[in-house]
């Protein structure tokens, strides 16, 4: 095996020996450097004739790893652990203390630079980093991983959220059963991340936290650098500073109640209610009108389309501008504050709930009060009481939806995923259709009622028809019973109307079927596969619509019953 594909690959164990690292260290190195195994085309050839299951890496990758300075640090760390253990074993506390003071550490800056040569590359890969950081920042401060890591994750995620708020680049939000998905557009990159709901985790036993911790180590470094760069592009101070203009001294007391001085800054930052300080205090630098240069080969239509998209986006960014929200204490404060602030709203909450509240419940100018409880005792007249889903649905619909469907105690309309883009032939839930109609500016509700009435009428008619048919049938039966020996009659036959179109269609279908029979074997296979997939999707869509229809009918029947009662 001195040539061929066997020389391009190396098995995991051999690679490990070549690097003289333990398996755990090898894994860490692979995670940090982004090395992944490769599946050779001919496994048996690469495996030197054996068919045993093996993981293969590219030999080039492993050679590349050999020059990594971190490998040396890993070895140092190994020795450090050995020494420390020895010191503990001999109960030499002083030595142990001294050793611990000299714990070897490493930095991942160069790895980040190497893995992501340009900033856009890094941004493209930031999805996982964000999800991981948001997860780690919800971990309890005990056990599982270092407190510093958790705090760092928290800090980075809060910085990220603040950046998104300042840039107003949030596009979509989705409340799923797993957590809340956010999608933002940063420098032309679509970034999606998932934030778990604010609950304590029951830590599973089948998860290797060391692997997670290694990933987090990498991701915090990456996210830190990205945050720095992003803040720089917006002329913001990094680490972020809160804009102290609007802050009065009166709130200082409550702050003292709430948090210690050391934590106060972080808490205020994570309250997401205040804006950040800019390096160059500018209002005038903002919003210079952009010139539009039509790209080559772009006609007027496309240009117009692009302009329209741009306008839409601008409008979406100012969706909640001028509205004043108040969050009741049972709603997810952080998520709502983040989303609302991203679209230009003013948000506040109860003083005792969290630091950073800017106005009280009693404020007369509040327009919307977000509530998530079945009923509310004290209500103010001049504001809407809505459930939190309204905010998210508005963001996804890019418009202010009618609040009536989201009032307190009302059964909510379904919450749809904004990430689904239905192609032709896919199943589209009726709520989505309604939403699309709304976006186009139609008022569908009255029509629907009419439709319902129509439906009722037609049903009745159908019933009547059925009864007619039944009558006829009965008559026939009676006749048959009366005169069993009815004489055989020859009646002039009626010429069946020939449906030209249909006949043509059938002929075409037959033609196609016959042509399909003549396909080559290979083409036939591919064709069958494509058609199978198409048919399956159609079948699924049909199944969904049938299910929906049945459910609607059942609910309608229920309603009628209730009305009758």
């Amino acid at each position, binding site marked *: 095996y001195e040539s061929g594909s066997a020389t391009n690959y190396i098995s995991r164990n051999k690679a490990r020996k070549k690097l003289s690292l333990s398996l755990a260290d090898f894994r860490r190195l692979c995670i940090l450097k982004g090395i992944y195994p490769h599946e050779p085309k001919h496994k048996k050839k690469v495996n030197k004739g054996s068919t045993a299951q093996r993981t293969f890496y590219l030999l080039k990758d492993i050679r590349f790893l050999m020059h990594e300075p971190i490998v040396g640090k890993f070895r140092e760390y190994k020795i450090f652990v050995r020494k420390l253990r020895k010191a503990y074993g001999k109960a030499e506390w002083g030595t142990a203390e001294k050793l611990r003071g000299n714990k070897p550490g490493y930095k991942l800056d160069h790895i980040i630079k190497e893995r992501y040569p340009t900033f856009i590359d890094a941004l493209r890969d930031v999805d996982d980093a964000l999800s991981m950081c948001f997860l780690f920042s919800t971990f309890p401060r005990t056990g599982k991983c270092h407190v510093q890591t958790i705090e760092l994750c928290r800090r980075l995620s809060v910085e990220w959220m603040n950046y998104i708020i300042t840039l107003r680049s949030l596009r979509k939000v989705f409340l799923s*059963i797993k957590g809340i998905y956010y999608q933002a557009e940063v420098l032309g990159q679509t970034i999606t991340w998932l934030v778990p709901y604010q609950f304590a985790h029951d830590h599973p036993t089948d998860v290797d936290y060391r692997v997670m911790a290694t990933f987090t180590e990498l991701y915090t470094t990456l996210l830190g650098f990205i945050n720095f760069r992003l803040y720089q592009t917006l002329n913001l101070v990094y680490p972020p500073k809160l804009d102290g203009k609007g802050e009065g001294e009166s709130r200082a007391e409550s702050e003292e109640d709430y948090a210690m001085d050391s934590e106060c800054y972080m808490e205020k930052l994570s309250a997401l209610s205040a804006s950040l300080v800019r390096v160059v205090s500018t209002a005038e630098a903002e919003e210079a009108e952009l010139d539009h240069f039509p790209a080559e080969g772009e006609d007027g239509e496309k240009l117009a389309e692009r302009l329209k998209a741009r306008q839409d986006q601008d409008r979406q960014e100012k969706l909640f501008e001028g509205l004043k929200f108040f969050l009741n204490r049972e709603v997810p404060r952080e998520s709502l504050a983040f989303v609302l602030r991203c679209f230009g709203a003013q948000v506040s909450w109860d003083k005792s709930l969290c630091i950073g509240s800017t106005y009280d419940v009693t404020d007369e100018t509040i327009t919307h009060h977000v509530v998530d409880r079945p009923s509310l005792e004290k209500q103010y007249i001049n504001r809407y009481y809505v459930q939190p889903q309204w905010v998210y649905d508005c963001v996804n619909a890019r418009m202010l939806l009618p609040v009536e469907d989201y009032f307190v105690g009302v059964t909510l309309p379904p919450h749809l995923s904004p990430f689904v883009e239905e192609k032709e032939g896919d199943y589209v839930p009726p709520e989505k259709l309604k939403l699309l109609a709304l976006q186009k500016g139609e008022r569908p509700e009255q029509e629907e009622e009419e439709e319902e009435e129509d439906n009722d009428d037609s049903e009745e008619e159908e019933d009547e028809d059925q009864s007619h048919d039944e009558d006829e049938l009965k008559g026939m039966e009676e006749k048959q019973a009366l005169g069993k020996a009815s004489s055989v009659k020859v009646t002039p036959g009626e010429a069946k109307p020939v449906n030209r179109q249909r006949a043509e269609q059938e002929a075409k279908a037959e033609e196609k079927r016959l042509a399909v029979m003549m396909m080559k074997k290979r083409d036939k296979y591919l064709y069958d596969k494509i058609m199978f997939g198409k048919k399956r999707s159609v079948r699924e869509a049909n199944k969904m619509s049938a299910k929906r229809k049945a459910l609607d009918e059942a609910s309608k029947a229920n309603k009628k019953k209730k009305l009758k009662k």
Partner: protein
Amino acid sequence: MCFYNGGKGCVLNLRDSLTLSISLSLSLSLSLSLSLSLSLAFCSQDIRNTVGNIPMEWYKDYPHIGYDLDGKKIFKPIRNKDELDEFLDKMENPDYWRTIHDKMTGTDVCLSDEQVDLVHRLQQGKFGDVNFNEYEPAIDFFSNEVMIHPVTNRPADKRSFIPSLIEKEKASPPALPPPVFTSTHLHLPGWSPSMRSEAAFAFAARNASGLGLDESCFEQLDSNLLASVGKLVHAIKMGWIKPRRPKETAPQYYDLWAKEDPNAILGRHKMHIPAPKMRLPGHEESYNPPPEYLLTDEERQVWEQQDPDERKLSFLPQKYLSLRAVPAFSRFIQERFERCLDLYLCPRQRKMRVNVNPEDLIPKLPRPRDLQPFPTLQSLVYHGHSSLIRSISISPSGQWLVSGSDDCTVRFWEVCTTRCLKIMEVGGPVKSVAWNPAPSISLVAVSYGENVLLVNPGLGDRLICSATDQLISSYEEPEEVKDQQVQWAVPEGKAQEQGQRLILTHPKAVKQVSWHGRGDYLACVMPDDGSSLQVVIHQVSRRRTQNPFHRNKGAVQCVSFHPSRPYFLVATQRYVRVYNLIKQELTKKLMANCKWISSMAVHPGGDNVICGSYDCRLAWFDLDLSTKPYKVLRHHKKALRGVAYHKHYPLFASGSDDGTVIVCHGMVYNDLLQNPLIVPVKVLKGHIITHDLGVLDVAFHPTQPWVFSSGADGTVRLFT
């Protein structure tokens, strides 16, 4: 409460009740200690209970109260002191206040003056002994003053004479004698010199940072040690040794991409594939999805029974009425972890997605409409047979149809009217019928069992019929009678009247009969694997039988004469062999690429052959082109039973067990360079599938573009 009792080391443990009243109870320990320390009068009573310090309630129900030193029971005093006695006692007895009840002995004891005094003293927190002086002058053994003599007599241990390794390093001139320490020099005798020096170093280090050194502290230390410490202090002063800097824990961020190269590719290698992003969630993942996305009970059951890897959704869609009701997702950490594993353990591969319009894959064929005429409709059905019809044949004039069935009859039909003109019963299920292709002869070969009948149906032109009869009867026995494997016999009586002219009895069952184009030769197939007698050729005019092959390879399925040349085609299970009858040699062996050939037909042009097989294939051979099929058509869903060519039109048909007859346009061009054009033009349905059998035989009308098919449902159908 603990009392130090005059150096005698007696500690009284007063557990309870002394502070309240003497009359309540004095514990045994008190009484014992009193008796010990004071040796008072009631020592003489010498009643000692040996039960020990136990709750005396245990003896409540017994007459005795314990055991004395000799092991004899101590009986409770016979007393009947009730409340009244107690009261009287209290009123009358002047010593009542100093009387206590001894639980151990059950007697009342009257305390003496000394004892009462002792109790009073203890209550006041004084020492029990009157003579004890608690303020004696103290002697300070461990003072800061250094004495000439050691406190203890213990000799100094060896380690105090030998310097430690660290000290040895610090003490610069190795020639100096080791410093001698005695414990007298220190106030703390337990310390070893090494510890001392460390302490000194630590002290020095502490002072050096701020205040400077207080030399006087070290005055009493040995000069050598002082020198080493002095060195250290000097080093610290000079800044050679620096105190440890506190570690930076917070990571430092800066603009990493300040000098980024937009053209930089990933330095590693070209094969790097960035990780795919996570799938975005659909409607079913919503906390409040539209109702149709929720699983029904059956779907839920199916989901639960499925293997977690096979599930289409990794979670159960759920609906919550409000956001506050949404719980934490229990598998959140696992899913993130799985993503991590995917990122560093999964091999990555670029999958090329086929982006083909399926319409483009369909070959462009001429439209069937342009290829007319071909049969399109079922127009006539011939009812009459009660069992499946294995074989049909058309007269060369196209006016008559003969069919042979498993109900042991042969029926003759008029094609246009579907009238059954004649029914002939034979002695077994009819396997094959064949009308003589010569237009001047009216003869039909019928095979059943081991016999082949030659029948003159007597239909059509009477002249031809009589001519045929004459032809057969004009046979003259040759002079030399050869031994033949087949017996030729002339039927008589009723059979003769029915039209049977000759009976050929074979040694084995005959499966197929096939006429030569000129109508004199008749080939019969008796399938039998490996036997030398599988195919025989009869010459009717001379009533002679030949066995053309000495050896047959495999079981012969069917045979056919070439329409224009002296070739004979024999189909075995997998191959079709073409023999030249004149040269008596194998000309060609066609590989059919199928498992089991069922039927075969030769194109009237003679250059093309089609074979139907039981594994649903139809192979078209071009004899000039290759011995492999020019095209294999898999149109049928089930085994093919019969294939046929049309004599004049470029059509061929195949009948199959799936109950369909597929008619194809098979144009053969005279130009040798142009390949035949094969286009399926019509799928004809009509036969009912019975016993898993559909169409058993197909035949074309000799002049019209009509196709006949016989089926297992006992009908013959005509498609026009």
